[in-house]
């Protein structure tokens, strides 16, 4: 079952989530929206990296913060907290 959400990040852009969940963890995720990220191609790695992550605020933010750092990603209009909220909101 695919869970979805659409979330406008405060002072940021719109992010849309398509999520497959298993036992409280992300199995597969698709992140779309009108935000900006550099390099753009890193989005697929971001989605892959979230697979296996527990769906709670702390775990998601830790996963994302580490990801930006490890891959030297620059975000504009999208934040770890914003993405985490969008994922948590998926129904």
């Amino acid at each position, binding site marked *: 079952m695919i869970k979805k959400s*659409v979330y406008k990040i405060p*002072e*940021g*852009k*719109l992010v*849309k989530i398509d999520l497959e969940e298993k036992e409280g963890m992300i199995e597969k995720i*698709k*992140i*779309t*929206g*009108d*935000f*900006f*990220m*550099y*390099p*753009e191609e890193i*989005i697929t790695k971001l989605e892959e990296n979230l697979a296996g992550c527990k769906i709670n605020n702390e775990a998601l933010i830790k996963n994302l913060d580490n990801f930006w750092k490890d891959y030297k990603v*620059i975000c*504009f*209009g999208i934040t770890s907290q914003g993405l985490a909220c969008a994922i948590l909101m998926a129904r």
Partner: protein
Amino acid sequence: MKVRLLTTGFKSAYENMAIDEAILTHAQKNHHATLRFYGWKPFAISIGYFQSLEQEVDIPECKKQKIDYIRRITGGGAVFHQSEVTYSLVAPIDDRFIPRDIQKSYQKICQGIITGLKILGIESQFVPLNDIVACGKKISGNAQTRKNNILLQHGTVLLDVDVGKMFSLLKVPQEKIKDKLIKDIRQRVVGIRDLLGSQVKFPFCQEALIHGFEKALKLEYSKTPLTVSELALASKLKEHKYNLSKWNCLR
């Protein structure tokens, strides 16, 4: 700042995006700056890199109305390219001409549009993250990508807004709120012609923007055309990237 000025007229979405990318690719080698103004024919919907084409665009309706659809290499939202002047600026990010800070770079480049609109008699303001607003309504949207220390920022300056037509081509989550959304958007978006109460034409507005960028960004224009290599690359990108669903349906 020395900048090559190009006015390439009306081309298809595939040609326009291919030209932008070809200029960006070459600038990564030659570090030259280019400012281009252009229009779209046929009309087109472009979506940002991170959007899902299938989720955002009613493809059968686009085909029916003979409207092109394309994914950009820049992020941002869905744009209906009909009555507008589009610009693209390619330049090295050196913290002298183009700030390294993304928000500051949007703000600086958008001064070109703001000054251009002022020449037309329109007061406008930059609104973060990437919009220009006149009389409280959005008149310009902008999107940026950065590759190897070279920036491409392109954006639109609206002449007219056909919200009804735009919504007929986009997928709206709930059909029943479509009318409300159309009414909402009409109150939040505006074109140059509405503000001036006059059917000013594309060349006239393009000229104002050319002068606006020149003045605001202290540009020294040279008018050399696209090079043979740039044209060749643009042609290749149009045929092997932008024309293909492999790219447009990427996400």
